[in-house]
């Protein structure tokens, strides 16, 4: 006979008025693009790679931001994030400003800028999205059971993650210069996640 431990019941789940039970899908606008799959994202990634190899970084960035799987599943989003990271890493420091200006102006430029900002924050939030998605997601190791892993944190600073982070940070700096803090605020409010 199992004893029910009442203290471990998450009572918020049972309360219909609780914020946990807020229907998050009501925050999605009707204009959300139809869901895409990871294979579609993979084909976008190869198109983008071609553009990048063909010496058109601006076109590559523009294309990868226009095809962001806002309505896709998690797998599609992961594949697309890898593609975006690849493009960002493939553009040289000196070219950043010029490329950004091209991408963030003109028709739909503001949306592309907001979308890029979402990817920058997503890239900075996920420690393992290595170039091309080659690395598999590591399990977070937490020896003390505190949920806070020191091992992973240290690896970040020294390994490839640190280099990726510095690329994202310099993009972030350039993008804020161009489109202002409003774009950062919209990353927090927008439920059309990338």
């Amino acid at each position: 006979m199992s004893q029910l431990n009442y203290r471990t019941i998450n009572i918020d789940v049972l309360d219909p008025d609780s914020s946990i039970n807020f229907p998050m899908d009501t925050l999605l606008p009707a204009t959300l693009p139809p869901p895409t799959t990871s294979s579609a994202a993979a084909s976008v990634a190869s198109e983008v790679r071609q553009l990048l190899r063909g010496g058109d970084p601006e076109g590559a960035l523009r294309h990868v931001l226009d095809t962001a799987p806002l309505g896709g599943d998690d797998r599609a989003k992961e594949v697309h994030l890898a593609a975006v990271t690849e493009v960002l890493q493939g553009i040289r420091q000196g070219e950043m400003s010029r490329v950004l200006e091209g991408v963030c102006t003109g028709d739909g430029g503001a949306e592309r800028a907001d979308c890029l900002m979402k990817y920058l924050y997503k890239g900075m939030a996920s420690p393992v999205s290595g170039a091309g998605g080659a690395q598999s997601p590591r399990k977070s190791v937490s020896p003390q059971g505190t949920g806070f892993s020191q091992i992973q944190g240290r690896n970040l600073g020294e390994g490839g993650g640190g280099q990726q982070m510095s690329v994202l940070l310099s993009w972030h700096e350039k993008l804020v210069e161009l489109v202002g803090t409003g774009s950062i605020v919209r990353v927090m409010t927008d439920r059309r996640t990338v």
Partner: protein
Amino acid sequence: MPTPEVHHLFHNPIADHSFSPDKSTLAVARDSNVELYQKSGNKFSLTDELKGHEKIVTGVDIAPNSGRIVTCSQDRNAYVWERTPSGWKPTLVLLRINRAATFVRWSPSEQKFAVGSGARVIAVCYFEEENDWWISKHLKKPIRSTITTLAWHPNSVLLAAGSTDSHARVFSSFIKGVDTRPEPSAWGERLPFNTICGEFLNDSAGWIHGVSFSPSGNALAFTGHDSSITVVYPSAPEQPPRAMLNVTTRLLPFNSLIWNGENEIIAAGHDCEPYRFGGDESGWQLTGTIENKTGPGAGSAREESALHMFRQMDLKGQTQADTQLKSTHQNTISTVRVYEETNGVLSKFSTSGVDGRVVVWTI
């Protein structure tokens, strides 16, 4: 443009402010009290305090004709204050809410007022003669979260509400026996209580901080925490709007907005200064700031002696104290209100904010 009239009242946040119609009385919400200031010369001095709320006062509004003041607070109550020979007398309003009251505004007819709350309802309050008190009816249906802001349509029946569920909605608050049947408009023809005349969501969502009807009532503007403003032009009842125009900005979010005629909107918020937007049904854009910041901020830089410079570097690690913002408000602006207008076109408006200042701007 002329320099704005600045009244630095105290060093506390001002949740809301309201001027009497003759502009001689200013009511501001400070902590759990409402303070009344009287104009003497070109200064405002404290004359009265409306004490009664137990928690932070979130809204205050002076009715232009009757002079009654309505206040609401996080203690879940609202009071209507009337001036008697022995001072201001409060009447408790039966709100029937179990969460904080967040916002209150008189309808233009002054027969009703609406109170937004964290209980996911809007209490529309009116005076019941028989029992001699203010009672409320709840607008409830599709609201999924706290109501943060409200605005009345000029016909006193339609009510716009913004919520933390990121939707701006237009409701009918028609109460039999109190309201006269409104003229049919693009928002609706038959308008029983709690009719939903519109429900709008931005692409980038975000809590709604401010809503406002245009002077004609035929357009709605709202702003949210996504640093954008959205203008909606309704087409016909039950139909999608004729146009819904979103202007994203590079600024920090706006907290409040008002219309200046049908083709200009003034919005202010976390960037501490008011901005102008201009446009019509074909498109809107940010057109600039109200404030001319080359004035006081830049001019206040005094002559710097070498001694002074090194002393500052020693004391503060910098040569110039740059703790002052260049804007008139030194912190977030929380409320923008119409101060003086003719036929919907503004000549003056007022702002109040977290810095304890009330500023009257001339356009």
